[in-house]
C-alpha cells in the first residue's frame, strides 16, 4: 500500500454511504464520456472523428485506473502504467502542466498512440490524472504508415518518441515540442488539431474533476475511490469464484510473413483459481522479441489478458484497478509477448500478435465446459483497415490516415451469434466505422463495393460474425499508397467446442484490364489511377456443433442471406422446402433429422478411420 492510500484511509469517514458511492461512480463515468465526446467532435483525422480510435480515462494519483467508460479496450485497461512514468520523471509537476507520452518502453501501447496526461490538482495536491490516448494519422514513421511490420528495430520504425515529455506549462504549449512534431509529422495541421482535441478532452476532465472534488471534499472523494476500487474487486472476486478450477492452455499462430516463414505462435497458460478468487495469465512461454514491428508492449499484453477474461464473464464488472487486483499477468523480459526490450519495435503492438494472445486466452476458457468462453474473433487489420496516403489533386498537399471500413466477424459465444461490427479482438465492438461518403469527401478515394459475405461466419450451434469485402482505389490522377497487415489469411479464426473456423482474410489488386492478382496480405500497394485493391477481412469462429443449431435459426440465416442454402444442407444438415410466396422457405423437419443423422454417421466414420491410421 502506498503512503497516500494509508493517509486517505485514516482520514476517511468511517464507512462511505453506499448511496453516495453509487452516485459518484455514475458521476465519474459521465466525466469520461464528456471527455470522449469532446475528442470525437473536435478531432481532425478520420481515425478520430469517424472511427473514434482513441480513449479517455481517469487515473488516481497513485496510478490506479479508475474510470474509462466505453474506451477502446486495449487503450484503457493498462492506463496506470503511463501515469507512473509521469510521476517518476516529473516529481515537480504542477497544475497547468500537460504531458505527451507515446513511448512503449515506458508503458504506452505503441508509438502511433499519442497520450496526453493532465495531472489534476486540488489545493495544490495531485489527486487524479486525466488521460486521452489517440491513434495518430501519422507519427513520423519512416514510411507513411502507423503500423510498421517489416522493421528490425525502433530506428527503422523511425517514429518520433516522446518518453513522457512536458508539452504544456501553465496551460500554454511548449513550442519546442510542437515544432518538433510539426517538422517531422507528414500532416502537421491535422496532427496539431488532433493534439488540441486530445488536450481539450483532458482539460475538460480536469475541469469536471475539480468541480466534483470541490462539491464533495477531497476526503470524501478519496474514501469513495478506495471504496469503489474495493467494490470492483469484490465483483471480480465473486465472478471468478463461480468458475470451475482448472489450468488452461491455448495457442494461436499469427500467419507467416516474408522473413518469418513459421509465423508467430503464442502460448497462453491460464490458472483459474476460484478458491482464491484469482485468475492468472502466464505469457512467459513465448518467443523472444523479433526483428519485426510485431512485438507486443507490456501495456498491450496486460490489457489483452484482461480483455479476454472480461469478455468471458457474464457479469458487468467495473473495469478498473480494483477488479484487476484479481487478475495476475506474468510476463518475461525479452519476450515478444509483453517483455519488450530495446531496440525492438512494437509498432504493431496493438493488433496482430496481440489479437492472437486475446484469441488464445478467450477460447481457452471454453475448456471450462459448455457455456464458457468464446470462439476466436476475426482480427485482420487488412485492406478495410488500411493506412492510406497520397496527395490531394488540387493542392498537392499530402494526406495520410487510417480507415476503419472493413468488417471482421465477432466470435460466437455460448449465448449468441458473432457480433457483426466487431472490428477486432483488441477493441471489439467499441470502435466506430467510417462512412463511405465521408471518406470520399475527405480524401480522393473511390469505393467500388462494400458488402458482408454469406457463409463467412464460422458454422456452429452459434454462428461466427460475417466477414466484409471492400474494393477501392484512387479517385484522382494521383496514386494511392495503401498499407495493410492482414493476419488470419492462412490461419483463420478458429471455432470452439465443435464450431468451425470463420472465412480467411484476403488481399488482391485489380489491374486496369480487370485481371486480379493476390498480394502479400501483410504488405503495401501503390495503386495507379484505374487500379483497385480488394480485401476481405475474416469471419468469426463458431461455438458448438453446427448440427445442433436450431433449424429455425438456420432458416432465418438462409432467408437473410447469411448462409447459403447449400451450406445449410451440407454443414448444418438442415433441409429446407419451398413454401408460399414469402419468405418462400420452410424447414423440412423429417428431412433435417435424417440429414443430420447421416452427417453424424459420416463424421463418426471419418473419426474412426483417422484413429485407425494414427494407431
Amino acid at each position, binding site marked *: 500500500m502506498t503512503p497516500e492510500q494509508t493517509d486517505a484511509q485514516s482520514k476517511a469517514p468511517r464507512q462511505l454511504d*453506499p*448511496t453516495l458511492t*453509487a*452516485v459518484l461512480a*455514475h*458521476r465519474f*463515468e459521465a466525466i469520461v*464520456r*464528456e471527455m470522449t465526446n*469532446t475528442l470525437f*467532435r473536435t478531432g*481532425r483525422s478520420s481515425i478520430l*472523428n469517424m472511427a*473514434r480510435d482513441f480513449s479517455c480515462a481517469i487515473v488516481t494519483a497513485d496510478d490506479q485506473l479508475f474510470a474509462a467508460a466505453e474506451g477502446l*479496450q486495449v487503450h484503457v485497461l493498462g492506463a496506470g502504467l503511463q501515469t507512473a512514468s509521469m510521476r517518476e520523471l516529473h516529481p515537480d509537476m504542477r497544475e497547468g502542466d500537460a504531458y505527451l507520452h507515446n513511448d512503449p518502453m515506458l508503458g504506452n501501447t505503441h508509438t502511433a498512440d499519442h497520450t496526453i496526461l493532465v495531472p489534476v490538482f486540488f489545493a495544490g495536491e495531485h489527486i487524479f490524472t486525466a488521460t486521452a490516448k489517440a491513434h495518430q494519422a501519422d507519427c513520423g514513421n519512416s514510411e507513411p504508415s502507423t503500423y510498421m511490420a517489416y522493421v528490425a528495430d525502433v530506428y527503422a520504425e523511425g517514429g518520433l518518441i516522446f518518453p513522457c515529455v512536458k508539452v504544456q506549462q501553465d496551460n500554454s504549449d511548449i513550442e519546442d515540442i510542437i515544432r518538433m512534431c510539426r517538422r517531422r509529422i507528414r500532416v502537421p*495541421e*491535422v496532427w496539431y*488539431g488532433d493534439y488540441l*482535441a486530445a488536450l*481539450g478532452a483532458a*482539460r*475538460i476532465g480536469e*475541469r469536471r474533476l475539480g468541480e466534483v472534488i470541490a462539491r464533495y471534499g477531497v476526503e470524501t472523494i478519496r474514501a469513495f475511490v478506495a471504496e469503489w476500487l474495493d467494490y470492483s474487486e*469484490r*465483483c471480480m472476486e*465473486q*465472478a471468478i469464484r463461480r468458475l470451475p478450477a482448472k489450468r488452461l492452455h491455448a495457442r494461436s499462430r499469427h500467419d507467416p510473413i516474408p522473413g518469418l516463414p513459421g509465423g508467430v505462435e503464442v502460448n497462453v497458460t491460464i490458472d483459474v483459481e476460484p478458491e482464491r478468487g484469482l485468475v492468472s495469465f502466464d505469457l512467459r512461454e513465448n518467443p523472444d522479441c523479433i526483428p519485426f514491428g510485431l512485438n507486443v508492449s507490456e501495456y498491450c499484453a496486460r490489457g489483452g489478458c484482461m480483455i479476454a477474461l472480461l*469478455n*468471458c*464473464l457474464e*457479469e*458487468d464488472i467495473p473495469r478498473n484497478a480494483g477488479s484487476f487486483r484479481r487478475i495476475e499477468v506474468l510476463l518475461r523480459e525479452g519476450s515478444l509477448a509483453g517483455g519488450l526490450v530495446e531496440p525492438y519495435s512494437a509498432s504493431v503492438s496493438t493488433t496482430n500478435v496481440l489479437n492472437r494472445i486475446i484469441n488464445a486466452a478467450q477460447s481457452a476458457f471454453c475448456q471450462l465446459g459448455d457455456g464458457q468462453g468464446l470462439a476466436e474473433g476475426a482480427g485482420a487489420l487488412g485492406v478495410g483497415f488500411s493506412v492510406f496516403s497520397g496527395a490531394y489533386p488540387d493542392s498537392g498537399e499530402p494526406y495520410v490516415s487510417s480507415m476503419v471500413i472493413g468488417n471482421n466477424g465477432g466470435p460466437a459465444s455460448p449465448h*449468441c*451469434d458473432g*457480433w*457483426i*461490427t466487431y472490428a477486432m479482438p483488441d477493441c*471489439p*465492438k*467499441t470502435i*466506430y*466505422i467510417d*462512412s*463511405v*461518403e*465521408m471518406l*470520399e*469527401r*475527405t480524401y480522393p478515394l*473511390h469505393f467500388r*463495393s*462494400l*458488402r458482408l459475405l454469406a457463409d463467412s461466419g464460422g458454422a456452429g450451434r452459434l454462428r461466427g*460474425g460475417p466477414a*466484409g469485402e471492400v474494393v477501392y482505389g484512387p479517385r484522382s490522377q494521383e496514386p494511392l499508397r495503401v498499407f495493410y497487415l492482414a493476419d488470419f489469411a492462412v490461419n483463420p479464426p478458429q471455432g470452439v467446442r465443435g464450431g468451425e473456423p470463420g472465412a480467411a482474410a484476403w488481399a488482391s489488386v485489380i489491374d486496369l484490364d480487370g485481371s486480379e492478382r493476390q498480394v502479400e496480405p501483410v504488405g503495401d500497394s501503390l495503386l495507379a489511377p484505374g487500379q483497385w485493391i480488394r480485401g476481405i477481412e475474416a469471419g468469426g469462429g463458431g461455438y458448438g456443433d453446427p448440427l445442433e443449431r436450431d433449424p429455425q435459426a438456420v432458416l432465418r440465416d438462409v*432467408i*437473410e*442471406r*447469411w448462409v447459403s442454402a447449400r451450406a445449410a444442407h451440407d454443414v448444418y444438415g438442415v433441409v429446407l422446402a419451398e413454401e408460399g*410466396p414469402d419468405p418462400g422457405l420452410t424447414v423440412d423437419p423429417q428431412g433435417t433429422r435424417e440429414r443430420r443423422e447421416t452427417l453424424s454417421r459420416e463424421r463418426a466414420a471419418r473419426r474412426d478411420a483417422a484413429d485407425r491410421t494414427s494407431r
Partner: protein
Amino acid sequence: MSARITCDIGGTFTDVVVSDSSGGLTVAKALTQPSHLFGGLRAALERAAEQLREPLAALLGRTSLFIFSTTQATNAILEGTTARTAFLCTEGFPDILVRREGGSLRPYDYTRAFGEPYVPRRLTFEIPERVDADGNIVSALDEAGARARLSEARALRVQAVSVCLLWSTANPAHELALGELIERELPGVPYSLSHQINPIVREYRRASGTSIDASLKPLMQSHLPEIASGLQAEGFAGELLAASSAGGVVPMSELIERPLWSVRSGPSLAPVAARTVAAAETGSHRVDVIVCDTGGTSFDVSLVRDGDLVFTNETWLGEPFQGHITGLAAVDVRSIGAGGGSIAWVDPGGLLRVGPESAGADPGPACYGRGGTRPTVTDAALVLGYVDPERFLGGAMALDTPAAETALGELAGTLGVGLREVAHAVLSIANERMIAAIHELTVNEGVDPRDSTLVAGGGAAGLTILPIARELGCREVLIPRAAGVLSAFGGQHSDIVREVTAPHVTSSQAFDFPGVRETLDGLRARMLAFESELPAGLAGEAQRRYFVEARYAYQVWDLSIPLEGDGVEDEQALERLLERFHDAHERIFAVREPGQRIEMSQWKGRVVIATTTPPVAARRHAAPEARMPQRRTAYFPELGEVDIPVHLGSELAPGAGVEGPALVIEPETTIVVYPGWSAHVSALGNYRLELA
C-alpha cells in the same frame, strides 16, 4: 370566443388541452384506442367539452386551430409494426442499414445478439448505378436492371420503398429516375427519396431516416386523414396543424408527405411548454431552462439555451448504435428508461443497483398488487410516504403499502439497513441516472445548471425533482399547472417552424461573398414559397433566421452558428461570424485555434411564423375554503420519520405558500416539498419552488 385545441395521442393516454383566447386552460384525458385513434381523441374531446359545459360540436365549431401530435410513429417503429419496406441502394453497398456506424454501449457483453437492420437484407435491392463525391455519374443508371429489382420487390409484396443512393445529395438524377420507375412498376406504393427527405452526407444516417420515412407512409397516410375527416365530421372547420420534431408545427398535409418529422415530435413540445412557462414567470425570454418530463416508464430531459431550443442530429429510436437513427436535426430530447417500475437489486459485489430491469406496467411495482414481488422505485416512494396510496393516478388505483414494505424489506435485510433508509437509497440512485443525463446534455452545450431554471412535468414530476435540482445546484424549480400534460400544453404555444438547407462550400480564407449571398437568397425564396402556401388563416409575421454549419479544417462534425440578420455582408460581419465560431468551439470543447481555417459547407434557414398563441393567463380560482390540511407520515433522511401536511392543489390560491416538508396533491402529479424547500403558487397558477 375562439378556442385552440392541442392533443397528444400517446401509447396509453390521449391528452387534450383546450385554451380560450383569454388563456383559460381545460385539460382532459382518455385512453388511446390504437386501432381507432380518432375514437380515443373524441372521448378526450368530449370530456373537455363536458368540463366547458358545451356540446362537442360547439367546441369544435369555435376552434380556430387544432394542433395534433402523436407517438404512433415512434411506437410503430419500436414495436416493428411499420409497413413492409424495400430498401434500394447503390449496387455494391447493400449492408448500410445492417452495419450502421458500429459501436456498442456494452462492449464486454457477449450475451446479446446484434440488432436487426431496419429493413431486412432480403428486402434490400442493389441498383446498378454510381455517382461520385463530386456529383459525376461514374456509371449510369441501368434502367432494365432497376426494373428487374422492382419486380422482385413487387413479388415480395412490399408496401413502401426507401431509396438511398450514394451521393444523391451531390446529384439526385438517379434517385429521381428511380422514383419515376417506382411509380410505373409499383403504382400506388409510397416511396421516399433520400435527397428529398434529408440531404446530408453520411449514407447510414440518410438511409436510415429515409427508410423510417417510407415505412411510416402507409400508416400515416391512413391515420392522419382519418383524424382530419373525423374532426370535420364533428364540426371542426379551422386549421389543422401537426407537431414536428423541430419543436414547432407544420400543416398536417406536410407531415403526411414527410412522416419522419413526426418521430418523437410529442416530446419535442415539452421544452416549448417549459420555455413559455419560464418566460412568463421570469419575465425574460433569454432564459436557460432544463426540462424534465417524467412519465411512468421514461424520463425525458431537454434544454432551452438562451431562449432557444437545443437541437441534435443524433436521435436514435431504441438503443444508440443498435437501434435506428433518424438522422434529422431535431429537438434534443434525451430519453432514459428510468420509470417508477425500475427494479432495485443488490449485485454480487454488495452494491445497491436500480434498473435497467423494469417491472413495467404489468405486473408492475409490488404495490400495484398485480403479482409483482420485486421492489421498484414506486414502492420506495410509497414506503417513504411520498405517494398517497388512495390518490395515486387521481385515485384510479389503490396502492398496497404492505406489499411494497415486504418487497423493500428483503432488500433492507440483505444490506443490513432500515426499511426507510433503503427506500431513500433506491430513490437517490434512480435520481442519479437522471442527473447524469442532465449533466451530459447541459455540459455538452456549455450550460451551467446552477444558472438555469428547472422545469418539471409529467406524472412523476414532483416526486424527486427537488433532490435532483439540489444536486445540480439549481436554485429554482418550476412545476407548471399543466405539468401532467406538458407536451400537449407545449402545442398550445408552438409556432409554425420550417427549416430549409442548402449546400455551399467556402472557407474563412477565401470567403465567397457572392456565392453565399446567392445561397441565402435561395433559402429565402424557399421560405417565402412555404409562407405563401400557408392557408390564409395561418398567415402571420414570419421571422427568418439563418445559420451556417461550420468546423475547423479537417474536422467533420459541425457547429451550427447563427448569422447576423440575413447574411454575411462584409469583412467585418465575417470577422464577427468567425469569432462566434471560435467562441462556440471553446465553450463546448474547451479549446480554440485562432487563425485556423474554418470551413463552411451547409447553410440553413429557419422560418418561424407565430400562431396566435393564447396568453399565459392568471389562474382562475374560486376562493378556497380555509380548511386544515390532512397529514401523513413521511421519511426524510435528515429528519427521520415526520408528520407532514398534505395540501390539495385545488385549494391553494395564487400567492399561497407551503414550507417543506409537505406534500401537494394535484390531479396528475404529487409534489414532494422536501425539507429546506418552499413552494408558492404564482399569480399564473404555477408552482415555484426554492431552496431556502
